[in-house]
Structures are given as C-alpha cells and as structure tokens.
C-alpha cells in the first residue's frame, strides 16, 4: 500500500535522474523508465482494488502539512483510481509499444514521457484549480515536445499548431482560474459550490469550462487536433488521444458539478454536434490516422454529451454510460492507433494487406466493432442506456443527431473493415513484420475490452450464459479452428441440436413455430455447409453465433435481451456475408442498413413502456401499450431487416454476394427475424390498438414490396440476385399479411413464412450446387443443365411451383389464405397488387428454371456432374417437407390455427381435409388427388398414342432450315423480359437505388464541404477557437 503521491514524486525524480542513468547505458535508463511506469500501474491497481473490492473510502492526501483550502489536496476515490489505472496502464502499454523507438531515441523523450504520465496523474488527482493548471501545462508541454518524437515536417507543423491552440486555451484557463478565485476567494474544488458564483461570476466558470472544452476538441475548433493525430507517431498519438483526453475529460468531469445546468446542456449539445460533424466529415476521409482522429474527436464529443445529459441520474447509471463510452472509446482508439503504426498504410485503400495477417485482422475487427458501439462491447450498453435516458426525456433531436452520427461512423469504420478483409492488395506487397512489443499491447487491449464487456453483461445486467452463448460460440470455434471444416460442421450440427433441445420447452407455441423456422431450418441448412473443403476458419463460429442469436431472439424476456440478440444476429450475419468473394460492398450496405434499423429499434424500445412481467417478450408485450412512435420506429426497423420496399437495396447484394451456402441462411431464415419482430409488435397492437393505424401503411409497404420485388427479380441476370429479390417479394406478402391483423392474415403470414423457409432454402442450396459446378451465377452463361443435374432440377422445379402458388403444391395454400384474408379484411386494392405481383412472379420463376436448366447446354458444361451430396441432402429434406404439406396441409394449418387462435377468433373451419373460410374453401388433399389424376391420364394417353419417339439432342431443332451456330446464340436468356422493361417505361428506373445513391453522395459531399473549414492554417484554428468561445458565450447569454 503505497501512497499515490509517490507516483508523482517518483516519476518526477526519475524524470530528472534519467539523464544521469543514461550515463550507465540505455538499458539502465529503460529499466528505470519502465520500472517507474509499472510501479505507477501497480500502485494505482492496488488502490483501485482496495476501493472497489474492499470498499475503502476515498483517499485524501494533503500536501505541505496543511489542510485544504490552504494547501493543495489530492483525492483518490473510485473515479480517480479508475481513470488513473486506465491512463497509467495505457501509458505503460504505449511505452511498451514505443519500445523500439525508445531504444534509439534521445533520452529526453523518455523523460518527457515520464513527465507526461506524471502530469496526467496529478491532473486527475488534484482538487485544486491552480494545481490543475500547472499539471495541465506540464502535460501539454511534454506532449508538444513529444509530438516530434518522429521528426517530420508534418509533425513539426502539427506540433506548432497544437502549441498555439493549446497556448490560447491555457490563457483562457488561466483567466478562468483567476476569476474563480476573484469571485469565490478559493480555488479548491471541494470548497467551491455553484452558489458561490453570482450571475456575473458565471463568466469565470464559463472561461474555465471553455478552456477545458477546447482541449476536448469540439467541432469546429479542433483542426489542430486532427493534424496532430494524422502526423504524429502512432504511439504518441495514442497517448494524446487516449491518456491526455482521458485526463482532460476527467478535469471536465471534476468541474462539471460547478457548471450551471444550461451551460452544461449547451456543452452537451456542442458535444453532440461535434460527434455528428466529425463523423460526417470522417465519411470522406481516406487517411487512416486522420480518420481515427475524426472518430476520436467525435467520441470525445459523445462522451461530453453523455456526461452533460446524465449528470443528475443515479451514479451506477452514470458509471455505465460515461464509463462505458470512456472505456470503449479509449481502449479501442488506443488499439487502433497502434495498429495504424504497425500497418503503416496511410491510405485506407491499402489496408487490404491485413487480409494476409489473420491475427492482426482479428484484433482490428475486435477494436473496430468495439469502436462502433456494437455489442457486447461497453459502448453498446452505454449507448443503449444513454439513448434510453434521452428518449425518455424526449430529447429526440439529440437522439436523432447522435444516432445519425453513429451511423456515419459505422459507415466509415465498416468501409475500412471491409477493405481490410476484402480489399485489393499489390502482389509484391511485403508481409507486415512481426514485432512483439507492438502487437502485445493491442492484443492485451482487445482482450481487456472483451473481458470488460463480459463483466458488464454478467455483473450489471445479470445476463445468463445463454445470452452469452453467441460470443462463446465465436471464441470457442476460434480455438478449434484447426479442425477440418467437415468435423466442425458436424459438431455445429450437434451443438445446434443440443441448443434446440435446451430451448425446446417454450412458453408459447408461437415461439415453437419460430423455433422450428430458426433452429430446425438452420440445422438442415448446416448440412449444405458440410461441402466445404478447406478449413473455413471462423465460419462456423459466426454461423453458430447467428443461429444462437436467432434462438435468443425468441426467448428474449426484455427489450434489451431482444435487442442484444438482434445485434448479435446482425454482426454474425455481416461477417458471414463479408466472407463472400466480392462481398465488400454488399456486406457494407447490409451493415449500414441493419445498423440504421437497429438504431430506430433502439429508440423504439427506449420509448416503449416498461414490461411488468417475467414472461418472454412475445407474451409480455401483449400487456404493453406501445406508443405510436415506438410502433413506427420498430416497424421500420423490422422492415429493414425483412427488406421492405425503399430500404431493400441491401438485400439483393447481400444475398447474392454471400458465399453460396450462406445465402440460404440469410434469405430463408434471417429475413424471418424481421417477420418475428413485426408479429411481436402486432401482438401488442391487437391487444392495445394505438390511435394511429400504423399497420395500414405497413400493409401497403408489404404489398408494394411484393410487387417491386417480383419485378426486380424478373429483370436480374444473376441467379442469386433473382432469388434474393424473390425473397424480398415473398417477405412482402408476409409483412402485408401480418399487417392485416386478422386470424386469416396471420395464419397466411405464418404459413408462408414456413413455406418460404423451405422452398427458398432449397432453391438457394440448389443454386449453390449449380454454382459449385459451373462457377457462374450469371444465368445466361448456363442452360440445359437438366440433363447434367437432374436432382437439382427437380428441387428447383418443385420449389418454383411452390413459390408460384400453383396448385397442388403447398404454395397455393399460402395464396389462398392471403387473398381470402385480404378480401375478408376489405383490403381490395392491396389484394389486387398482390395478384399482380404473383403474376409477375411467374416471370422470374420461369426465367430461373429455364435459363439454368432448360434450353441449350453450353460447351463448357458438357461434362459437369450433379451437385455434391451435401447440397442434395438438405434440398430433399425440404422437398419432403413441401410435399408432405402439399399432400396434407392440415399438418401445418392445424397447429398454426391453434397458435393464431391465441390472438384472434378462429376464422376458418377445418373439416377433414377441407378448410373453409368465410369466403370459400380449399381441400388440399382432393386437389392433389385430382391433379394426380389429370396428370396421369394424359401421360398414359401420350405413351399409348405417340408413335415411335426418337430422343434427339439439343441442336436438333428447326432453325429456319439452318443449323444453330452455337449454344450461346441459341439460348434465349439474356435480358429475357426486355419487352416488359420497355413497356414499364419510366417505371422501370431504379429510383430507390438512385435515391440511396444520391443520399450517399450528398452526405459525402456535405462531409467534404464541412471539412474544408480545416484549412490547415494554424491561425484559422485559433480564430475558430476564439469564435467558438464567443459564439458559445452569446448562446449562453450570460
């Protein structure tokens, strides 16, 4: 137990003595240097341990034998020890990171570094404003000097700008301090209260706050900081961005109780604006370190905002929110800055080199996901609670700005990530050299942030193991990644089986139904992945993560559990999509749209009233009256996931570019998560009808989605894209049926969901098999494969009949239910649109089967074989399901009838095989029998009456008395529905795509426009600072 004052003393002493030690060689001085840094960490760690776990009171250290206010006092409480532990530890790590640099550099850099750390320690602990100024200046001067550790012209310029900006800020701080003294006669924070200040005295606090605030780099008075981040050595940058920022933020935290609420709010809003604009400007940034700088500035803005808006809430919440943002941002940022130093690529485009270095890539991923505020990282929890507070206090503008800013951040961070995973690299690119001293801190920080995440989940939220399962899956499979992928696949199958068995005792049958779609459907689809030949590193981990999150979605008991599972689902599916060969753009779009949806849902859930039962969400939400705003936001969120019209553009890309055995998961199962969510809102909706009929519009969106999806599918050349749009269309039907809010409607929605899961899985797996053999997805490059891949053909045939709704297969049941429900409800025009889209669906279905399997076989496909057995097995499992339901629709209709019966009065009568609705009836079995009959009779007739039948080959066609030139010119497949496109005229333009494209362009242009205020001229930056203070002053209106 060492008095923390020794940190200061020892550091200072060592700092002075280092140049003497240097005489004994660099080894000795380095030993002393690292020894002191470690000592600091050790001392603080011990104090932290005592305060947190042994509940010791905060330590007050009086200096010079006097009590405060006459003397300066230091305080080491919970907050201080936490911040100090963090800063000292980061300082040590950064020093380790800089080890190679420190071996060679001048001894003064070691001294400066020690003094810097010492200054931070003092800054955090001191309770005296004057002392604070001194420490701040110590920190600043040592930082200025350290900026030129790597002496380049850029770092010199940046350092100079930094100095004049910092100097200006310190003038204001000095003025603030002296005014505080003038008005209160005191400089000790423990002895000053807000009431000590007259109205006029607020000016002193204002100056003080502004000086600190300027050091925290608010937009737009922060150009100097960006330059520093960009140009200075990564190790030092990490110290400036993390250690310094942490210290200065803590100063802000210390003086914040003094600040009047409205000033605090203005600063909070300034923080939000900073967050928004720096992320907006980050969009256009291509320099990795400067980008991190933008992100850093933004995050600090968010940190300030979170502190300003939550300061009056309970302490544990502040710890979670502010602490969460703090830890999350700083750890991630430190790690990322260090990474930039290792990769040494300035331009983001060149970051594809990471692809060859898996361990760096993983670290990069962890840190980036953390920085983006995705679960399980602390930033997620902080954001969730923060948004909740803001929403409940109806600060919607702030919420919107923060979330939009976060979205921009997601965009540039994930663009970076996708480049790192999938970007192009030079073939003569050198391997990234391995340096333990550089890698170690990053790895350690990644580990720490994961540990903190788990700690928050376990201790603050009390999550059970099952909620942690998605993370455990990823980490667990990562450890087992050396096993061949087939074994991993079988293991996954078993694990999913056990997981399903564990989940099985559901509270409601609705859960069971979705359990079957999610878990059983996934399990069957896993069989398709067994075809993988190589190690498939990381694949099964994220696959399991996705499946577990599906499961967790349906057993979620609170909004947070639901949302957590939702986010895990998004993350895992994003990674899975990104594994595709050309999936860079696709996965990015998926991530952006998913995140936008998730943010809307976050607000929606935050605004929803608290649940008051311990039942699963899907049950307990029935007792809650969701406000209209919540319903709208949640509905949009879910509809983004289900690919509704307007927000569908991610869908075809993601489905098409994902690996072909991943697509069935995305299309057949993932989209159902949105369906599940909509049903969940619906359950609340029917019990507590809101004043505004949101679902009427949802219904319209559903039918338009169905129509547009069908048209878009018809105009695709890419088989998987076609299937993707088909999914969009089908889910449109489902969404519209849910929106009907009637027994028949929900029956049809669930029936179609189940059916869609089966036939779309089968279709995607079949196409996966075709792709596996032909290596192309472009349909017109195939053709005539029926003779080569008959089993796949049969799957596709049965599936497209099921999709199209042609009797006697199960698809007709869906159509019958849907139209009956629409007409029953009185949604006549919607039904008309659905009829139209179901007519259009024939176009793409025929195109799919014809251009791939019928027509002319190409030369290069003359000796391909049937798809591998692992693709055939799942297909035929699904086929068996479709045929069973087709023969006996009661297999599914009856259970669904009872499930939906919980929510609505049953509207159908089941009598044997006959199902009667209020409008008509349908006897699936009889239809099947009659169809069999009318099929077999002509077949026998044909067999009997056809003369000698000669089987001929593909070129034995009449061809205007000529012979076909080549299969390519004889196969009608390219732009098959050109005439329809022509007929549609202006309606066929990709307006939605253009809209989002324009939105992207505009936001990038705005970002570019705003970042031009950073002219690079130091004087302009000073002007910004001064103007900023003046403007805030005017707004404050003191």
């Amino acid at each position, binding site marked *: 137990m060492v008095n923390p004052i020794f940190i200061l003393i020892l550091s200072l002493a060592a700092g002075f003595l280092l140049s003497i030690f240097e005489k004994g060689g660099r080894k000795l001085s380095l030993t002393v240097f690292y020894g002191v840094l470690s000592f600091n960490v050790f001392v603080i760690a011990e104090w932290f341990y005592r305060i947190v776990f042994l509940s010791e009171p905060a330590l007050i250290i009086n200096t010079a034998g006097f009590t405060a206010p006459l003397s300066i006092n230091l305080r080491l409480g919970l907050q201080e020890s936490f911040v100090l532990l963090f800063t000292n530890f980061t300082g040590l790590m950064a020093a380790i990171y800089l080890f190679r640099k420190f071996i060679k550099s001048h001894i003064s850099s070691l001294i400066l570094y020690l003094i810097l750390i010492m200054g931070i320690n003092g800054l955090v602990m001191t309770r005296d404003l004057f002392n604070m100024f001194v420490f701040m200046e110590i920190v600043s001067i040592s930082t200025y000097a350290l900026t030129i550790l790597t002496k380049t012209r850029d770092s010199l310029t940046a350092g100079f700008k930094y100095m004049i900006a910092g100097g200006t800020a310190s003038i204001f701080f000095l003025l603030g301090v002296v005014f505080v003294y003038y008005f209160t006669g005191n400089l000790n924070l423990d002895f000053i209260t807000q009431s000590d200040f007259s109205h006029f005295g607020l000016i002193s606090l204002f100056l003080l706050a502004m000086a600190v605030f300027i050091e925290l780099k608010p937009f737009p008075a922060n150009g100097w900081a960006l330059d520093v981040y960009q140009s200075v050595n990564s190790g030092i940058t990490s110290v400036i961005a993390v250690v310094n920022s942490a210290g200065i933020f803590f100063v802000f935290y210390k003086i914040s109780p003094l600040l009047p609420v409205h000033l605090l709010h203005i600063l909070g809003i300034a923080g939000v604006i900073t967050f928004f604009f720096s992320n907006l400007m980050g969009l256009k940034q291509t320099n990795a370190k400067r980008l991190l700088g933008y992100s850093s500035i933004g995050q600090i803005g968010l940190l300030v905002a979170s502190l300003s808006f939550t300061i009056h809430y309970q302490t544990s919440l502040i710890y979670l929110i502010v602490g969460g943002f703090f830890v999350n941002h700083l750890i991630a940022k430190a790690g990322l800055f260090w990474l930039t130093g290792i990769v040494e690529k300035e331009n983001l485009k060149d970051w594809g080199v990471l692809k060859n270095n898996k361990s760096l890539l993983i670290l990069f991923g962890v840190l980036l996901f953390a920085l983006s505020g995705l679960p399980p990282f602390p930033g997620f929890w902080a954001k969730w609670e923060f948004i909740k507070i803001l929403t409940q206090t109806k600060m919607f503008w702030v919420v919107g700005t923060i979330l939009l800013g976060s979205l921009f951040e997601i965009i540039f961070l994930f663009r970076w990530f996708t480049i790192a995973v999938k970007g192009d690299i030079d073939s003569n690119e050198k391997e990234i050299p391995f340096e333990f001293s550089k890698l170690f801190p990053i790895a350690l920080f990644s580990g720490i942030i994961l540990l903190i995440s788990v700690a928050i989940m376990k201790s603050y939220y009390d999550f059970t193991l099952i909620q942690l399962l998605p993370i455990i899956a990823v980490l667990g499979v990562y450890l087992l990644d050396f096993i061949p992928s087939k074994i991993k696949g079988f293991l996954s199958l078993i694990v999913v089986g056990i997981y399903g068995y564990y989940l099985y005792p559901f509270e409601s049958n609705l859960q069971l139904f979705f359990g079957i779609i999610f878990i059983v459907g996934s399990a069957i689809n896993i069989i398709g992945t067994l075809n993988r030949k190589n190690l498939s590193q990381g694949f099964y981990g994220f696959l399991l993560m996705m499946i577990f999150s599906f499961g967790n979605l349906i057993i979620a008991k609170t909004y947070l559990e639901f949302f957590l599972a939702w986010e895990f689902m998004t993350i895992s599916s994003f990674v899975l999509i990104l594994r595709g060969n050309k999936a860079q753009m696709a996965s990015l779009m998926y991530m952006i749209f998913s995140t936008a949806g998730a943010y809307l849902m976050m607000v929606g859930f935050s605004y929803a009233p608290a649940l008051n039962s311990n039942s699963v969400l899907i049950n307990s939400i029935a007792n809650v009256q969701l406000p209209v705003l919540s319903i709208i936001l949640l509905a949009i969120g879910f509809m983004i996931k289900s690919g509704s019209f307007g927000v569908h553009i991610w869908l075809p890309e993601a489905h098409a570019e994902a690996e072909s055995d991943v697509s069935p998961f995305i299309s057949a199962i993932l989209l159902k998560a949105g369906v599940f969510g909509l049903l969940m809102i619906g359950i609340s909706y029917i019990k507590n009808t809101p004043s505004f009929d949101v679902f009427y519009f949802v219904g319209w969106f559903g039918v338009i989605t169905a129509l547009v999806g069908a048209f878009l599918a018809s105009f695709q050349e890419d088989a998987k894209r076609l299937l993707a749009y088909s999914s969009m269309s089908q889910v449109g039907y489902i969404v519209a049926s849910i929106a009907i809010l009637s027994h028949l409607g929900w029956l049809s929605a669930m029936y179609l969901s189940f059916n869609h899961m089966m036939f779309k899985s089968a279709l995607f797996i079949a196409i996966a098999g075709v792709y596996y053999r032909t290596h192309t997805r472009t349909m017109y490059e195939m053709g*005539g494969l*029926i003779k080569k891949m008959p089993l796949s053909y049969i799957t596709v*045939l049965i599936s497209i009949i099921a999709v*199209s*709704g*042609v*009797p006697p297969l199960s698809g007709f049941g869906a*159509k*019958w239910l849907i*139209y009956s429900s629409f*007409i029953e409800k009185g949604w*006549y*025009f919607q039904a*008309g649109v659905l*009829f*139209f889209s179901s*007519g*259009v669906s*024939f*176009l793409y*279905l*025929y*195109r799919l*089967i*014809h251009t791939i399997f*019928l*027509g002319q076989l190409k030369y290069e496909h003359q000796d391909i074989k049937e798809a591998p057995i692992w693709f055939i097995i799942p297909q035929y499992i699904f086929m068996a399901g479709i045929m069973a339901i087709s023969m006996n629709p009661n297999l599914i209709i009856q259970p669904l009838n009872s499930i939906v019966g919980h929510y609505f009065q049953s509207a159908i009568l089941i009598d044997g095989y*006959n199902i009667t609705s209020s*409008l*008509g*009836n*349908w*006897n699936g079995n*009889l*239809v099947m029998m*009659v*169809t069999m009959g*009318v*099929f077999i*009779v*002509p*077949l026998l*007739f*044909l067999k009997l*009456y*056809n*003369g*000698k*039948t*000669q089987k001929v080959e*593909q*070129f034995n066609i009449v061809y205007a008395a000529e012979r076909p030139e080549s299969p390519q010119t*004889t*196969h*009608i*497949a390219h732009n098959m*529905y050109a*005439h329809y496109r*022509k*007929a549609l005229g202006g309606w066929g333009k990709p307006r939605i795509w253009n809209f989002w494209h324009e939105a992207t362009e505009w936001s990038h242009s705005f970002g570019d426009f705003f970042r031009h205020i950073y002219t690079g001229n130091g004087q302009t930056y000073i002007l910004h600072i001064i103007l900023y203070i003046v403007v805030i002053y005017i707004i404050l209106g003191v």
Partner: protein
Amino acid sequence: MNIWIKILYAIISISVATIYGLILGGFVRKIYARAHGRFGPPIWQPFLDIIQTHGRRVAISHGVMYYLGPVFRLGGGLGTYLFIPVIYGSVVFANFSMAGDLLLVMYFIFFGQLGMALGAGQGGHPYSPLGIARGLAQMSAFEVPFSLAVIAVAIQYQSLNITTIVAAQQGSILNWTLFTNPFAVIAAMISLLGMNMHSPFSIVLAPQEIPIGPPIEMNGSFLGILQTNRGLFAAAKLVLFMNLFFGGATNLLIMVIKTFFIYLVSVIVGASFPRFRPEQSFRFFLKWPTIIGIIGIIFVAYF
C-alpha cells in the same frame, strides 16, 4: 358419393366440354374465313387435325420435360375445368368443384401454362422462350384487370365459391353480374381477350414473327394433346366467365349459347384488329382495363 361415379361423371363432363370446345374452335375458324370472304374449313376440322397429329408415325422428344410439357398442359386444362361447376344444379357437371373455390381455379390455370413453358423450354429452340416470355408477361398484365374483377365479384357476393356466386345470380337476368357490376365485367371481358390470345393480343403464337412460339418443336401426339387442350381450356375459361359474370347456366343449351356469345366477343375483336407489339399489349392491360377494374371495385365496395 361413390368416387367411381364421380369419375364417370367427370369423364362425361370433360368429353362434352372438349367436344364443345373443339367445335367452337372450328366454328371460329369458319367465322374468320367468312370475315375474309372464304368458305373456310369444315367445323369438324379441329378433330381431323387432332387425329392427323396423333397419327404421326415418328415423333421426336427433347427430353423428360419436353415429354411432360403437353401432359402438364392438358392436365392443367382438365384440372381447371374439373374445379369449375359447369352447370348450376347439375350433379354430372358439378365436377370436383368442392375441392376449392375461385382462387383455386385461377391458380390452376397456371399449372398447365407453367408445365408447357417448361416443356417448350427444354425443346431448346430460341423461339420457345421468346414466346413464353411474351406470354408470361402478357399474362401478368391481363391478370390485373381480371383479378380486380374477381375481387369485385368476391366483394359483391361475399364469397369466392363459384357455386355460391352462380346461385346469387339466379332469378332474373338483371341479377347477372353483367348488370349488377358492369365495370368489373368489362374489365374481365377485356382480360378475356388477352387470355384467348386472339388479335390484337396474339403475341405469343404470332406465326409471322416467332413462328408459333412455344410449341415450335412440338410434333405428333405432343401437338395433338396441345390441340385437344386448346378446345377444353377454351371451354373451361368460357364456363368460368359465364359463371362469374353471366349468371351461369342451368342446362347444357344455355351453357352453349352463353359461352358462344362470350367467345364471340373475342372473335369479333380478333377479326377486326391487327396485332399489338408486346409492350403495347402489356401497357394496354395495365392501363384502361385496370382503371375500369378499380372503378368496378369502388363501385361495389363503396357505393
């Protein structure tokens, strides 16, 4: 009811419909010929053609789907017909209409078309998919006014059951949907023009552009089956329209008269107009008849 008797009735019903449909086809050719100032073939010419095609000694087949295509087609025709109650109150001609309602019939129409499209597709001839692409596109377009009309009928009678719809139209000629909901009937009749694929909507078979389109490779019995189906399917569609919009029929004679006049509409239009280009046809269906269909729905639902 004994299933065998049911099947026997079905066979009778189908035979009547097929013969009627084929004769109707012959009659139409006669009408066309007269419009051209010719004598034209005898009315029973379709039968001769069918016998002749079945009498071919050799037939070529491009594969399994090609073989099954016509089977699907005729199956579709048979099924469509079998799910429609042909004569109101008749046991023999009730067919298997208890298996489902109007929606079933509407979707069963696609059964044959899809199967035929697949068969033609395996034929490997470029004109087949061209014709099918036109056909499918046109179908999706004329389905719009037709489905709007069907919705209007469903609203009007609060039922999708064809027998119920027919029953509601009994009593007086003014009870026919034609008079109670003229807009829906107009929309449906225009889409019938498309379904029957006479000019100006004969873009699928268009012998001058894409020599006969989908069935270009069809020969021998394959073609014979298709021709048989053409008669049956025409009869089925006409009976459906008669049931939905023209009061149904209580005996065979009325059925023949009504369906003949319904068909005459297509024939007259067909004999008077040249062919549309495909995109003109799609646009046409998505414009005027659709608007009329919407008016039809508004008319029954909100007035």
